[in-house]
Every structure is written in structure tokens, then in C-alpha cells.
């Protein structure tokens, strides 16, 4: 650099050569993500069951406030997130640290990641026939000793979805932590050992603090699982027993496309959850910024 003059200010928008490369992708994204993101507000003010029936004003929102299912569903999603997150982050971190540098590292990481790609309908079949409380393989095999009664106990339904979510995602978490682990320079461990640090001091005094960025990233990703869990709910419990696994994503689906479809009300619910999700991720973006 020739002089110390301050950098010229970045123009807000710049077209560089090959700018046309973004056109197809941007057009598709604007039409299928950005436009629905705006459209959802309009739909939420409409009386719209299966067909458009007219303007409804804030009717859908008023109904939302009076609907006990909404609060219940939000609380359930929060509980679900609070159960999943520590398990997900803890297990992924432990697996990654434990596997680092061992002979089985690659094989075990490959195995742990497999469920996240595995045909999800097939996974559901495997889980259903294995863990079904009355006729399932595990219950039959152990004479009813090891059974999760998710047909009639609410907590068991939630536990099932939590376990399924962990099953699907723990491998991804392990890969993320593993990447963070590999980026710690070996000199750090060397220096600590020369200074006489014990293995436990290495674990809790060095590895965990240095893994903080990866762990924060996992926490962000993991909290999204609470919003995405509706697929597992649809496949395994269909919201039951007695609505105890009706997470917000599933509530929207049931409202908008269930037996009494109401797209307008479903849109209003979507707006609420979107607003909550964005507020939440704004806080998280702050946490990430200070860490990455």
C-alpha cells in the first residue's frame, strides 16, 4: 500500500464483471422466498379457508390471542428446545473431543452423520417398528420393560421427538465441533503440557474455552431444530398424545392444511412465529458476532 489514506468507502451496491451470474439465483430466491415472506402478511389479514373469501382485518390475530392452543404450542416448542439443545451440544462436543486423533475417528464420524441423510420416511419406519410401545421390537424383546409409552403419556411423546432429533443431528454437531478442535494449534497443548497441566485442566481450561465459537454456532443451529421438528412430529406422533407434541411448526400445518383448512389463520400464526424467530436470531447474531 502506498499511503495511509483511509479506505474509500464501499459503495452500497456494486456490479462487478460477471454480475449476471447472480441473476438466475436471485430471481428464484426473490420469487420463492422474499415474495412469500411479504405475501404472508397480506394473507394473514384475509379470510381465506381453501379459497379467498375477503378481507378480514385483524380478525385472525384476535383469534390467535384467544386461542389456548397457541400459547400451549409455544410453551411446548420452548420446552422441546430446552430439552434438545443441551443434549445436542453436549453429546456432539463430547463425541468430537473423544474421537479426535483416534483410529476410529473417521469411521465413527461417518456413522454418526449417516442418519441426517438417511431417507427420513425409512427412519420413521425404523423408529416406529422398533420403539412402538405396544407391538414394537424393543418392547416385545424386553417384555415391556423398555418401553416409551408415547401413545398415552405426553412426556413420552416429547421424549421420543427429542431423541429422534438428537439421532438425526448429533453427527452434524460432531463434525462442527471437530472442525473447531482441529483449528486449535498444537503448540497450545504442547505449551500447557510443558507447564505441567493435567489432562483434565487441558479439557476444561483449554479445549472447552477455545471451542466456544463452535459451541455457540451449534447452539444457534440447535435452536432451529425446535422450529424444524414438525417433520418428526408428523411422521411419528401426529401431534399426539392429546396435542402434547404439537410444536408450532405442526400447529401451522394442522391449521392451514388439516381437516379444517384455514390458510388465513395459518398465515397469521406464521407471522407470529416468524417474528419470534427473527427476534431470537437477532439476539443470537449478536452472540455469534462477539464470538466468531
Amino acid at each position: 500500500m502506498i499511503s495511509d489514506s483511509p479506505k474509500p468507502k464501499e459503495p452500497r451496491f456494486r456490479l462487478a464483471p460477471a454480475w449476471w451470474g447472480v441473476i438466475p439465483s436471485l430471481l428464484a430466491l426473490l420469487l420463492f422466498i422474499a415474495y412469500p415472506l411479504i405475501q404472508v402478511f397480506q394473507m394473514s389479514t384475509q379470510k381465506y379457508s381453501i379459497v379467498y373469501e375477503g378481507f378480514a382485518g385483524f380478525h385472525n390475530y384476535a383469534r390467535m390471542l384467544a386461542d389456548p392452543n397457541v400459547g400451549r404450542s409455544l410453551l411446548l416448542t420452548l420446552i422441546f428446545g430446552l430439552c434438545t439443545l443441551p443434549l445436542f451440544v453436549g453429546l456432539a462436543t463430547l463425541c468430537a473431543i473423544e474421537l479426535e486423533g483416534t483410529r476410529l475417528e473417521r469411521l465413527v464420524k461417518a456413522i454418526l452423520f449417516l442418519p441426517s441423510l438417511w431417507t427420513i420416511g425409512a427412519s420413521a419406519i425404523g423408529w416406529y417398528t422398533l420403539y412402538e410401545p405396544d407391538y414394537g421390537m424393543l418392547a416385545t424383546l424386553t417384555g415391556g420393560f423398555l418401553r416409551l409409552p408415547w401413545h398415552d403419556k405426553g412426556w413420552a411423546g416429547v421424549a421420543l421427538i427429542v431423541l429422534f432429533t438428537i439421532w438425526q443431528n448429533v453427527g452434524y454437531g460432531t463434525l462442527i465441533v471437530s472442525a473447531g478442535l482441529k483449528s486449535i494449534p498444537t503448540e497450545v497443548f504442547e505449551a500447557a503440557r510443558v507447564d505441567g497441566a493435567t489432562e483434565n485442566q487441558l479439557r476444561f481450561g483449554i479445549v472447552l474455552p477455545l471451542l466456544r465459537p463452535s459451541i455457540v454456532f451449534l447452539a444457534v443451529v440447535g435452536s432451529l431444530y425446535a422450529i424444524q421438528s414438525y417433520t418428526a412430529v408428523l411422521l411419528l406422533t401426529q401431534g399426539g398424545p392429546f396435542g402434547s407434541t404439537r410444536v408450532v411448526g405442526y400447529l401451522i400445518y394442522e391449521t392451514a392444511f388439516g381437516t379444517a383448512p384455514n390458510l388465513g389463520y395459518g398465515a397469521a400464526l406464521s407471522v407470529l412465529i416468524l417474528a419470534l424467530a427473527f427476534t431470537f436470531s437477532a439476539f443470537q447474531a449478536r452472540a455469534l458476532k462477539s464470538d466468531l
Partner: protein
Amino acid sequence: MIPSLKPEAREKVQAGSPPKGTWFGRIVVGLMVVFVLLPIIWLAYSSFIPKEALFKPDVTIPVGFTFQNYLELPFKELIRPLLLSLLLSSIVAGLQVLIALPAAFAIRAGTNVLPLYLFLLSVPAELLLVPLYGLLKDLNLLNNPLALVLPFLASPFTVFLLYGGVVKLPWAYVEAAKLDGATNLQIITKVIAPLLRPEMTAASVLAFAAHWNLVLYPKIVLNDKNWATVQVALTEMLQKDPNNWGALGAAAMLTSLPILVLYALFERRVTRVIEGGLK
């Protein structure tokens, strides 16, 4: 290698290696592997259980081995949806990478729309099901297989993944190609694409799996038995006869085969790209 240097070198590696494993950790990892593999192994096993075994009082004792379950898989209710999904997910995976590549290059070359992509990436798309349904209805795309392709043409995630790869490439290659008179299109197809093969492979595999594993979406926008996707078919099989383990297991194994093959071929690239994505 000089033999006398060996012990010293090994010692150095150990001093710089991360903390040793613990018994507790080893047990947890072992349990996790069992927990992860159990449903998959069970599926593989159950797919070979003969039908008669299900009517015996204790099905846990292996009563035989048969391919019958695989041979009896219904064409219309399962094989056709499987083929349809294979076709659609492959098209989507291919097009997604094809569309993302020039976008990733353009962003690297200086078109500063990255924040817009980051924003679109942060939108939880699963919450847009309702307005997307409205849009597809207005476009007359409901119950049309195009509804399973068009909205997935572009993915901010794929663009981001490929951008991560382009950033790591030495830009001097591009400058050199430019000096030799290559057009941008030639640079993308002849310089960037070959260098980016690992990322493109991983992105295609992930895009394929993501599209392949859609359940709710196809159920809603393609509410037509003739256009059932593989996941819709599996869900219906499970709901219709949840106790027919043999048939369910065979269907689950057969429909997992494409994923298994893809993963066996490209496991290294996929895990590498995910691990590298954060750095």
C-alpha cells in the same frame, strides 16, 4: 525417514495432541454409535423376516430368512414414487449447483449481494409454507410436479457453500485466464468448475438429500396419488399397516439405497466440506 529421529518425533506429536480420551467419553461414544445404528440395523434385519413369523407368539427368535418382502413391494405405491423422487431430486440437485456456481463466482468477483444471501439464508423457509402454497396456487402450479422443482431451483445454502469454496481459490488463476482473453463464462466453466469439484459434489449430495427428504411439502402441494414422492409413499405405507414389519423394512431399505450409495461414494467430500464450512 531416519530411524533415530522416530522416538523424538513421536513424543512431540503426543505433547501437542489434544487431551486423551476418558473411559466415560468412550462409553458415551460407544452408546451413541449403538443408538445411531440400532434403527438402521433393525430395518435391514426386519426386511428379511418372513411374513409367517409375525403371527407367531414370539417374533424375536429368528424364524427364517427370505427375499419375499423385497419381491412383493408394490410398483404403483412404492417403486413408481421412488423413481419419481430419484428423477426430481437429481434434477433439483443438478440445477441448484448449476445456478449457484455463477452466483458464487459473481459474488467473489465483487458484486456485493452477499448480505442479501445471508438474509435469505436466515429466513426459516419452513415457516413460509402457507404463503408459498398461496403463490403456487396463483401460478397454477398446485398438483403439478413443477411445484417440486421450481421453488428449489435456487438455494442460499448452496450458493454460500460454493462461495466458501471460491474464496479459497487463488484469484491469480482467474486473472491469468483473463489475461489470456477468456470470457467470464469460460472462466466459470473451464477454471472455477474443475477446481471446485469437491464443493460441487458435496453441495449436490446435500441438495439431493434435502430435497429427497421433504415430507410435508410434497404432501401439501402434490395432493395427488399419481405424483406421490418416495417419502409420501413410505408415510402412507406406515400409516396403513404399521405392523407389517417385513414389508415396511424392505420398503425402507430399498428407498434408502440411493442415499447409502451416494454416501458411500462421497462421504469424505461431504464431511470435509461441512467441517471446512466453519473455518
